[in-house]
């Protein structure tokens, strides 16, 4: 079991994160954290108090020893709980995530399909603030390539409308577009899955 952490030379938030890890792994009744700057001792004190420790500070030279002694139940559950709800009065938009996995809509005439997709992207902003996130996968990522008619539309969505545009990194690599992408954030499957989980509705194209 660890009862003492040497966090000298570390900038915030590292000392707090190390202390948090120790509390969660070993749950010691007493923990001393040695730090060498004001922000670190203040932050470690706040953290230990928040987790129901009584805290005293001993200064020696340039170092601070933050000594915490447990006084009550740890509140692990409290800081692992989901983020607080937005304050009352803040408008809470629905979150719509649109998955675009192709560079054209439907089967049949490919030229028509490509035109339809551009029109679809242009019209998407009519969803207003409910449109939260646009995910581009497979040949959908080619819409971000230089020369694609979709680039200015996507840039407008990302800029004026504040829509997040997530572009699959694996797909960009496959199409050799990783360093050519004109718009959007390169992302991975974990982020895409998390996005789908957070969305209120997911629309697939």
């Amino acid at each position, binding site marked *: 079991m660890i009862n003492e952490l040497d966090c000298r030379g570390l*900038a*915030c*938030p*590292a000392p*707090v*994160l190390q202390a948090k890890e120790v509390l969660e792994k070993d749950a010691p009744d007493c923990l001393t954290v040695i730090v060498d*700057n*004001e*922000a670190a001792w*203040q*932050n*470690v*004190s*706040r*953290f230990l108090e*928040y987790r129901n420790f009584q805290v005293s500070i001993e200064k020696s030279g340039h170092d601070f020893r933050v000594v915490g002694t447990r006084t009550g139940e740890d509140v692990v559950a409290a*800081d692992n709980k*989901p*983020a*607080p*709800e*937005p*304050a009352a009065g*803040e*408008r809470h938009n629905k979150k719509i995530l649109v998955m675009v996995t192709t560079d054209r809509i439907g089967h049949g005439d490919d030229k028509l399909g490509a035109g339809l997709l551009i029109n679809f992207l242009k019209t998407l902003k009519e969803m207003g603030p409910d449109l939260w996130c646009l995910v581009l996968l497979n040949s959908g990522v080619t819409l971000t390539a230089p020369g694609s008619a979709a680039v200015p539309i996507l*840039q407008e969505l*990302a*800029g*004026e409308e*504040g829509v*997040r545009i*997530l572009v699959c*990194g694996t797909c960009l690599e496959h199409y050799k577009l*990783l*360093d050519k*992408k*004109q*718009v*959007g*954030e*390169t*992302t*991975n499957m974990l*982020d895409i899955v*998390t*996005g789908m989980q*957070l969305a209120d509705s997911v629309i697939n194209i």
Partner: protein
Amino acid sequence: MTNPTIRLTRTVKGAGCAAKLAPGDLDRALCGLDLPVDENLIVGLERADDAGVYRISDDLALVQTIDFFPPMVDDPYCFGQIAAVNALSDIYAMGGTPKTAMNVVAFPAKSMDISILRAVIDGGLHKMREAGVVLVGGHTVEDDELKYGLAVTGFIHPGRILTKKKLRPGDRLILTKPLGTGIICTAIKGGMAGPAVTDKVIRAMATLNRDAALVMRDYPVHACTDITGFGFLGHLAEMVVDSGQGVRIRATDVPLYPEALEWAAMGLVPAGAYNNRNFRGDFVDFSRSVPQNLQDLLFDPQTSGGLLIAVDSGAASSLLDALAAQGVAGAAIVGEVVAGPREKIIVE
């Protein structure tokens, strides 16, 4: 949201405006230096305003500023957007219209792929286009850490400059963006912030103060500044010192991110917030009802924060309505200017 190959915030020591040199240190460096004099320099270094102003003719002046910092978010494109918005903000805070910009870049070419730099600059260009600003050049040096920002030049009418110093007793103070980005960016750096809150603050930091600035032109605004590295109370302290007035703030009316309150209580407070408190704490009297984590938030260094506007009391609520109509959601009246105690900020 994370880039699959690299997390930008893990590559740097300080994040965003939290990386600013401690305010007291800067004062010590500049104090007593012999500055060139020019009668056309209307706002210069000795006044420490948001941007410098140089008169060209009776109805035209240049307004100039520079801002750059290390990344506070992981996505390079978003970082570029935020850095550009943050730099442009000083021009808006003075009441000016930004016209041209130059990139200021430090890049670790040995450890980072050049495509990251491209994405950063692309993000900056996106916001320059939105602001109607042209890029005229730039300067790039190799460095251990990525840093990006802009030097911006704008136009302003010499008679319509909004400085920090003309607060009048009775003025209402309006803040246009919520506080807490420094604490939330510390949580992002620590891997504690989920995608929803990360998304929310990135959007806010990448939102230009242009709309708020355009709206306030039609109202009797006496002073304005933008909230960045010195935090809400740090920038407010500059206003009370420069004007010789006092201010009363109702802490519960100040717009903020609720997540930041929770993380402040947990000790995810950036070092810049402690520097700001050490430098300006003497100007502030907190009432006992203001808890520690809320005090921390009021000193939290903001990246690309909102405008703090002092407006004639009779026009405050109509300005607030006009801001909301223009889409500046979340703006709030946070306090008022009082004749005394002078050079004090009372937070109730």
